[in-house]
């Protein structure tokens, strides 16, 4: 198949929309690669050709970018991507054990897929670098939605549910969709249905940990100093 058969008119229109967002077209490359992944579930050679055509770049220029960034998958991803943080802090609190258990349970290693790639219930596993949720360690993400404070047991339960076709709600994030759906949003395209859009935006974002400082201050009556209405400083006219 050629890239024009895989990427339909709608995808071309979206690619053009991305280009229009930036003062210079090449800036649209990163979001366009997310868009390509939302169609195919990975960045294929056709995906590289597509971006090169849209942006008037060479294939080599696009390939060089694709291979630099971890989030662009060069082999077909599963319906879901499960990323386990194994950086030091998460690892010390159990992240390494979570990854090891999932790897054994699914019978796959880093960036390998359990099941037929793309088929319902298939899962790509990866160990991730720090996911910026250290107060909630150990964490993992499914399609970049957060599942906080995991144990090997809870993680096994989670992937088994995914394999059964269920979509357990993330601790923080929107209701779970799939890898392609997540990639569409990373490209900057969100649901047009207002109600669905709102429910996704309003998905939970705060854990107990997130609010601990603010809560403690409220309980103890601690505040920042009171503000008074002061004018902006005077500066000499030049």
């Amino acid at each position: 198949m050629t890239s024009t058969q895989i990427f339909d008119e709608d995808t071309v229109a979206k690619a053009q929309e991305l280009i229009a967002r930036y003062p210079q077209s090449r800036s649209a490359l990163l979001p366009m690669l997310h868009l390509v992944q939302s169609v195919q579930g990975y960045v294929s050679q056709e995906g590289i050709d597509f971006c090169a055509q849209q942006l008037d770049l060479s294939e080599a220029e696009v390939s060089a970018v694709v291979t630099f960034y971890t989030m662009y998958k060069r082999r077909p991803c599963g319906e879901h991507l499960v990323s386990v943080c194994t950086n030091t802090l998460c690892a010390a609190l159990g992240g390494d054990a979570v990854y090891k258990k999932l790897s054994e349970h699914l019978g796959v290693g880093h960036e390998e897929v359990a099941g037929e790639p793309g088929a319902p219930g298939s899962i790509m596993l990866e160990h991730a670098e720090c996911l910026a949720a250290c107060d909630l360690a150990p964490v993992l993400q499914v399609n970049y939605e957060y599942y906080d404070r995991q144990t090997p047991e809870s993680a096994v339960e989670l992937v088994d549910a995914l394999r059964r076709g269920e979509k357990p709600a993330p601790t923080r994030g929107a209701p779970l969709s799939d890898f392609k759906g997540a990639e569409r949003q990373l490209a900057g395209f969100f649901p047009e249905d207002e109600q669905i859009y709102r429910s996704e935006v309003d998905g939970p974002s705060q854990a107990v940990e997130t609010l601990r400082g603010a809560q403690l201050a409220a309980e103890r009556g601690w505040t920042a100093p009171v503000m008074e209405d002061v004018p902006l400083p005077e500066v000499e006219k030049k």
Partner: protein
Amino acid sequence: MSDPLTPVLTKRWLSPNSWRLSVYEQLEGYQALRKALRGTPEQLVQLVKDAGLRGRGGAGFPTGLKWSFMPRDVNGRTAKPHYLVINADEGEPGTCKDIPLMMADPHSLIEGCVIASYAMRSHHCFIYVRGEALHCIRRLNAAVREAYQAGYLGKNILGSGFDLELTVHAGAGAYICGEETALLDSLEGRRGQPRLKPPFPAAAGLYASPTTVNNVESIATVPFIVLGGSDWFRQMGREKSPGPKIYSISGHVERPGQYEAPLGTTLRELLELCGGMKDGIPLKFWTPGGSSTPMFTADHLDIPLDFEGAAEAGSMLGTTAVQVFNETVSVPWAVMKWTQFYEHESCGKCTPCREGTYWLAQILERMVDGRGTEEDIDTLLDVCDNILGRSFCALGDGAVSPITSGIKYFRDEFLALCESNKRELVGAQS
């Protein structure tokens, strides 16, 4: 003397649906913008200088000074457009403040972006968010949409004649893009590799145009400074490091979380706030501001955690990502894990970092596996010496921090790993 906790940036987080515009407006939202637009760009730059705000992304560079580097002449024949780029590529191990901030209170960042853009005569602002922070990207996009509809973004903002476009841009998984010039290359659609400085971004940044790159927390602080003034801001923190700061406490403590306190708060005070060490197991080592800041030990409980205090004690304030480890954790193992991270994230542009991080990771892996020798410790330090100050950007410097500080404070633990590989003396077993 301010209170032990001073919620400014984190205060609105407690309000239900704090991310919505309607809630933000009820809680003084966009009042600072109105005030700012009545003033001149020069007044705003002066205000931020007076307040002494220092960059919250790790380096602590004075924000107002950075703004003042932007050219003033925007109408000349050769003048190029100005850009403000927000570094929301939060990825330094241990750091977890910007993503909760943008999820809970995205409008505070957007309001800060409009004020800062006005101060620097920029008409296009980009927020570069790391790709793995999907929910955060979703919230930011929704907030930007609301702000456009309400006239806080777009043409002729609040009737001031000032125009601003704001674009939320998702990254694709590369720690190095947190380095400001690598971020600019990435935003231009290239591999995220750092640029040679000078020229600095204020002279030639995005698309070779004058550009300022600021951290999320720095810019979200600006509306509060506009409302309260520099004297108000300086009532918190210390003279050279004023203001409140979000300390992200993680690891072996009873109640990890986000604690916004005046700069200069000590770990002893933070531990009191978060309930002390988990299960009473004693503290062994900790980072004041992410893995790139040399580690501290139980001897550093009373170091004031501000830019000067951390530096005087041999480390850096970094991102105030306080990762706390107790006695059950092996230092060489922790150092190995961090080194593997830098090895993975080294962009490959310069030799000392590209090759050095590989060697370091391999040596540490061998040592942790029980196959190290005493000589390895010297080799590690030697390689570190060849990376520190000799690599293209700060990633290399950051990579050696855990190793040199780990060996400095816990050499015995590294030596113990080599115990079984000591060369036997000739004749000793005869």
